[in-house]
């Protein structure tokens, strides 16, 4: 009788423990997901940056690109928007530009899309962009 009762309780405890472990794993995945998404975007960006751009980004959290049509230099700062600064000949901020992918993306993806756009279709990118006075 006691052994049967113990067996039943043991089974219930096992199932309860299994459920708790499952919930803990789900919570961990939920908690870590934003970081994983961000990291995936940054990994992709790093794969596509030139060596010079990658060194700049690692040192300053920004990198510079050359516009394919005008030859102007742009600084792309780490961020999801309002993060592009057009530089003058003295490498001083001249104009801020803001254009982003239509869908919400992580910062690494946004910066990569901005880099590709300025390096391959500068005029097209600036045509949709809003500008602002850089600080």
């Amino acid at each position, binding site marked *: 009788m006691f052994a049967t009762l113990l067996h039943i309780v043991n089974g219930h405890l096992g199932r309860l423990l299994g459920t708790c472990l499952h919930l803990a794993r789900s919570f961990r995945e939920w908690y870590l997901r934003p970081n994983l998404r961000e990291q995936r975007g940054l990994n992709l960006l790093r794969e596509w940056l030139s060596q010079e751009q990658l060194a700049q980004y690692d040192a300053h959290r920004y990198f510079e690109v050359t516009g394919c049509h005008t030859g102007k230099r742009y600084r792309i700062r780490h961020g999801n928007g309002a993060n592009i600064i057009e530089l003058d000949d003295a490498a001083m901020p001249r104009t801020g530009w803001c254009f*982003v992918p239509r869908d919400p993306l992580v910062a690494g993806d946004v910066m990569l899309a901005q880099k590709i756009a300025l390096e391959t279709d500068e005029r097209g990118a600036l045509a949709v962009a809003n500008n602002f006075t850089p600080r």
Partner: protein
Amino acid sequence: MATQIIMDLNGDTRHKFDVKDAKALLEAERRFKALTGAGFTAATRSASGDPVVTRAFDPTADETVFFPRLVGG
């Protein structure tokens, strides 16, 4: 193996395919057309590493990145 990388809410989604597999190649071309038709920009890299925007499916491209249409922020 070639890879199509689509930027999305998860960072990106990757589709790998064997260019020697006719069915997989067809599926990759269908995906390319669907994405670019929906406004995505497709980009590959030149031998020197510079990005190149591509308007037509290139079965020889090792890696193609797709990002959504750009808008003013």
